[in-house]
């Protein structure tokens, strides 16, 4: 790792103030993305501001407020996955977290850092590949005509086809979660769906978070669909692997008819993907095998596969289909 300056912040205010002055800084939470990518020399911050001390305050708490769930950004993945309210009332979140990474990583990794994890594209992670627009703007894309089995089919551009690898964010965009953001100029909120940017022709600008802005918490509104929700993840092996395809589904059913539907897709898109086309298919109809199939078709209608990842169309559709039918069967 390259040398950097290490500082600790014990409050949100102190953290954003430290970040606003001095050399370019990154916040350090669990370090499972940041330290990893610094070791690989992909990220080179001059300063790290350790925000783990914030876990002693509200950023370390899981609370229910006016029916909504508030997850502090420094809550770790294991804590949230095991929390009784999360498991009972927002099962899609607990599912997404439990199926992610390993016990070690879930113990270390924070929810805020989880949203901001970087792609696992091998060309991005390995500096010895000269072409990667995301790592080095204008250098080209190694994956586009290289190995792209793990890459995205939705939201891709000619500049980048890297998959957003996280699980939690897929469930959060489906549930209309809101992020509490703090900057040196004050606090604001941002929809979870606005956090990540499509790669378009600037894949190196990954999020709409300005430098130095801190995610303080994630708010997830409860709805009549949040209890009937699940996350289905398909991967190369049964545990401890990123998704090849995943679906976050939340349904409000009445006598088998869909009143509300929320659908997110993971492993197949460049950002946590909200499948509104699928939701439109579902609402007002009876959820049976045929509707599930039609919904999955609609969800992938705009997909653009590359050379090695066309299988993700079929896999992604079947994953969504199964997730919908499983959610419909859930005993509440």
């Amino acid at each position, binding site marked *: *790792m*390259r*040398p*950097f*300056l*290490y500082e*600790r912040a014990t409050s949100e205010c102190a953290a954003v103030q430290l970040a606003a002055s001095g050399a370019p800084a990154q916040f*350090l939470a*669990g*370090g*499972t993305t940041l*330290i*990893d990518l*610094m*070791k*690989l020399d992909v990220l080179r911050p001059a300063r*790290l501001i*350790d925000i*783990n001390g914030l876990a002693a305050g509200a950023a370390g708490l899981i609370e229910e407020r006016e029916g909504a769930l508030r997850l502090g950004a420094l809550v770790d993945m*294991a804590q949230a996955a095991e929390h009784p309210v999360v498991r009972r009332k927002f099962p899609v979140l607990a599912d997404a977290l439990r199926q992610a*990474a*390993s*016990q*070690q*990583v879930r*113990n*270390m990794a924070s929810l805020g850092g989880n949203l901001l994890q970087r792609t696992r594209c091998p060309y991005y992670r390995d500096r010895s590949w000269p072409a990667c627009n995301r790592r080095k703007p204008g250098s080209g894309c190694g994956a586009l005509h290289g190995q792209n089995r793990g890459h995205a089919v939705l939201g891709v551009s000619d500049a980048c086809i890297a998959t957003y690898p996280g699980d939690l964010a897929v469930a959060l965009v489906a549930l209309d979660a809101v992020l509490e953001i703090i900057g040196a100029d004050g606090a604001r909120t941002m929809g979870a769906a606005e956090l990540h940017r499509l790669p378009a022709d600037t894949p190196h600008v990954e999020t709409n978070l300005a430098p130095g802005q801190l995610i303080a918490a994630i708010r997830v509104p409860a709805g009549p669909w949040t209890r009937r929700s699940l996350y289905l993840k398909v991967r190369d092996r049964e*545990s*401890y692997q990123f998704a090849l395809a995943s679906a976050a589904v939340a349904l409000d059913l009445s006598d088998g008819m869909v009143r509300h539907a929320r659908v997110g897709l993971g492993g197949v898109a460049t950002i946590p993907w909200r499948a509104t086309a699928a939701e439109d298919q579902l609402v007002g109809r009876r959820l049976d095998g045929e509707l599930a199939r039609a919904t999955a078709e609609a969800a992938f209608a705009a997909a653009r596969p590359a050379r090695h990842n066309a299988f993700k169309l079929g896999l992604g559709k079947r994953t969504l289909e199964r997730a919908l039918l499983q959610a419909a069967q859930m005993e509440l």
Partner: protein
Amino acid sequence: MGEMMSKVKVSTTINGDPVEYLCDAEETLLDVLRDHLGLTGAKEGCGTGDCGACSVVVDGRVVCSCLVLGAEAEGRKVTTVEGLATGDRLHPLQQKFLEFAALQCGVCTPGFLVAAKALLDRNPDPTETEIRFGLAGNLCRCTGYDKIVRAVQAAAAEMRKG
């Protein structure tokens, strides 16, 4: 550039003993344990959080020390594989790993022992599925895992007897 950055002073507890050290900001906890403190039980397999050979327990929870900075140990309680035995008496997990031949080259073993101890501290009577899920973050290229799972089950049974 390393000379320009000042060292970080850390006060921590390792295997029950208070420890103070100075480290560079960019040194990981694994570097500090192995290179400064002579605790070479934790191994570096991958350095990227994938293999679990570097597992240590921090404040009761198993983590990958290859992705934790040495500076982050400030004020924490760290347990490494060296802290498992009591004097000359091996921990039941260590004993059962020997009895069941749950290791070959041994590079993964300290990580498995530490992760298994953290697992049993939280769940004294895990099912085989829970053991396999709980230890999924520890990779072994030699044993095929089965003997490891049996050893953990046997150790759990012995520890429940007290």
